[in-house]
């Protein structure tokens, strides 16, 4: 007789073992913060697949500290499957022998340390995924045995309020709870009744009242005070040469000063060009503080968010016509849905990168930093499954199509790289060969960690100009178009000047003067807000900047 319920029996046994550490009241779901290590050692088994919720912003930090304090003699060889490697504890568990294998998406703040540990063989790497890709694998072959998640509050039945940073939680819980896994949530407080139910209590097995509120990384705050004239010039070129020409209304912006500058130029430069209502109306975007002036000026119709941003909660609450909010009034974000929106419903992705090669392949991985991908490869790719037209998408499709039946033409998503030719410390952005290839060789990766493949990139914008790769007709034109905007980097200075001028005459390479952009306009006075304080003023005092961004 086949036992079809082995996983269920295993799950029941784990929960029974965990219950021994609860406070014993009403069903025994609530566990004191002091008992976290005991709870984890009771529930976990060696070799388990574990999602320790490390999102782009929200961190299950109390549970992370608990896991890293477990006895490696009892808990070892865990396979961590989580989107973000953000906290030191996320890597400590590998040093201590508690965890062995890793599948993840993004490791921004720990990029330097993870590179060292990968080189040193302390981490057995499965793959670096995009968010959607990792979420997809949660439902196919990387389903967690145990999920350690974070919320703002819970009631004693386990009903969970995630607050504005819902992020990955519904996806992680869906995959774990419905496939015989155990879900443990840390919350800032246990309450009688949660403000709204983001995760129903029957999907949550244990609730830990954390010793302090969970950590949220303010990842999307860019201080306008640090914006340079070069970034303003690039933003002007992008608005006039791309947003206006393609009539881009549905879009996603990556992280970075260039895209933040665009946000701050919409109510000034964009207004002057008469573009209000014609571009940048519908967004898949985190609630960037730099979008406040555009929202307040009536540019933005709606924004769906991956997560929230520190300090934006009150502002969002007061702008429910723009943001997705719950019955309680606070933001409801959802990374899986917003990534899907960015992939299929947006006509353009624009973001920055650390390296671009001669074919337009880009990577944020350098020999000493493995930052991972996050969502950029999904949003920064042309989804071949798209089946709905838009003027923007069709125009890009026409530019790209050179042969074949026009009746069978499909559109193209615009994928724009907005980069300065030199990064920090005069490190060139344009390179002959990506460092990612060296890394792949060194740690034996079968697939080089390319963030956006060249064939998905449609435009590159630098301070020198715009290269339209859709219009390039062969590899040589593409290379010269890229060299033609690579400024004074070696790649840029290695250009065939005559060929670049020929590309310029065909509109493939365009300079600020070709776009009618006045260099004197590239001035900080063009920014709708010139400081964090200005942003707070624009919001009518609703935006509450985190302490590190306050200088008043």
């Amino acid at each position, binding site marked *: 007789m086949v036992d079809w319920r082995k996983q269920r029996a295993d799950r029941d046994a784990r929960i029974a073992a965990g219950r021994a550490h609860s406070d014993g009241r009403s069903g025994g779901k609530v566990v004191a913060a002091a008992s976290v290590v005991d709870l984890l050692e009771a529930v976990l088994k060696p070799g388990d697949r574990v999602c320790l919720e490390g999102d782009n912003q929200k961190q299950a930090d109390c549970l992370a500290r608990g896991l890293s304090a477990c006895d490696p003699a009892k808990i070892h060889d865990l396979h961590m499957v989580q989107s973000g490697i953000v906290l030191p504890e996320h890597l400590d568990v590998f040093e201590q022998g508690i965890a062995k294998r890793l599948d993840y998406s993004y490791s921004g703040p720990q990029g330097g340390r993870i590179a060292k540990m990968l080189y040193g063989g302390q981490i057995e790497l499965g793959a670096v995924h995009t968010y959607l890709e990792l979420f997809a694998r949660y439902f196919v072959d990387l389903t967690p045995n145990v999920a350690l998640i974070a919320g703002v509050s819970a009631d004693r039945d386990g009903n969970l309020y995630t607050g504005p940073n819902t992020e990955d939680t519904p996806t992680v819980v869906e995959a774990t709870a419905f496939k015989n896994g155990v879900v443990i949530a840390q919350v800032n407080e246990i309450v009688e009744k949660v403000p709204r139910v983001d995760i129903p209590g029957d999907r949550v097995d244990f609730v830990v009242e954390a010793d302090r509120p969970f950590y949220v990384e303010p990842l999307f705050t860019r201080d306008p005070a640090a914006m340079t004239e070069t970034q303003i010039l690039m933003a002007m070129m992008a608005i006039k040469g791309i947003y206006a020409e393609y009539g881009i209304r549905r879009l996603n912006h990556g992280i970075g000063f260039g895209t933040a500058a665009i946000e701050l130029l919409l109510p000034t430069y964009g207004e002057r060009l008469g573009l209000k209502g014609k571009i940048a109306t519908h967004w898949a975007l985190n609630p960037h503080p730099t979008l406040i002036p555009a929202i307040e000026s009536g540019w933005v119709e709606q924004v769906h968010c991956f997560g929230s941003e520190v300090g934006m909660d009150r502002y969002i609450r007061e702008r429910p016509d723009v943001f997705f909010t719950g019955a309680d009034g606070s933001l409801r974000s959802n990374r899986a849905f917003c990534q899907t929106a960015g992939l299929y419903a947006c006509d353009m992705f624009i973001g920055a990168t650390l390296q671009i090669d001669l074919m337009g392949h880009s990577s944020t991985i350098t020999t000493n930093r493995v930052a991972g991908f996050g969502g950029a490869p999904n949003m920064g790719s042309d989804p071949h499954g798209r089946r709905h037209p838009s003027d923007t998408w069709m125009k890009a499709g026409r530019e790209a199509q050179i042969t074949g039946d026009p009746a069978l033409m499909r559109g193209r998503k615009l994928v724009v790289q907005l980069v300065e*030719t030199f990064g920090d410390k005069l490190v060139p952005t344009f390179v002959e060969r990506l460092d990612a290839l060296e890394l792949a060789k060194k740690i034996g990766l079968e697939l080089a960690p390319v963030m956006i493949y060249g064939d998905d990139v449609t435009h590159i914008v630098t301070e020198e100009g715009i290269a339209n790769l859709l219009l390039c007709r062969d590899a040589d034109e593409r290379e010269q178009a890229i060299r033609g905007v690579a400024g004074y980097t070696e790649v840029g200075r290695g250009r065939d000047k005559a060929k670049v001028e020929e590309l310029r005459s065909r509109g493939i390479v365009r300079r600020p003067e070709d776009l009618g952009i*006045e260099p*004197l306009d*590239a001035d900080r006075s063009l920014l709708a807000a010139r400081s964090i304080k200005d942003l707070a003023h624009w919001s009518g005092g609703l935006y509450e900047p985190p302490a590190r961004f306050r200088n008043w």
Partner: protein
Amino acid sequence: METLTFRHTTTKPLGGTTSQAITGVVASGNLEVLLERILAPDSCEIAIETPINGFGDVWEAVVADFVARAQPGGLRISINDGGARPDTVSLRLLQGARLMEA
């Protein structure tokens, strides 16, 4: 500290009549540019004081591109560099030329 001087011949004088302009600041990563209309209408001289040695070829390329783009005939341009990136230099020079055209 390095001092570099480049002399170019232009096909035409820079438009406008402004005799002198100054733009930018001597700050880290920035530069100050003084432009004076005191040379023959077909010549341009650019003198650079930079704290960073060894980038003469980049300066030469930046200056040559600027001269080709702006045709700044008649100008003597003095640059007080604070370690600016080439793109900042390029933008600042173009802004200076626009001020002189006013």
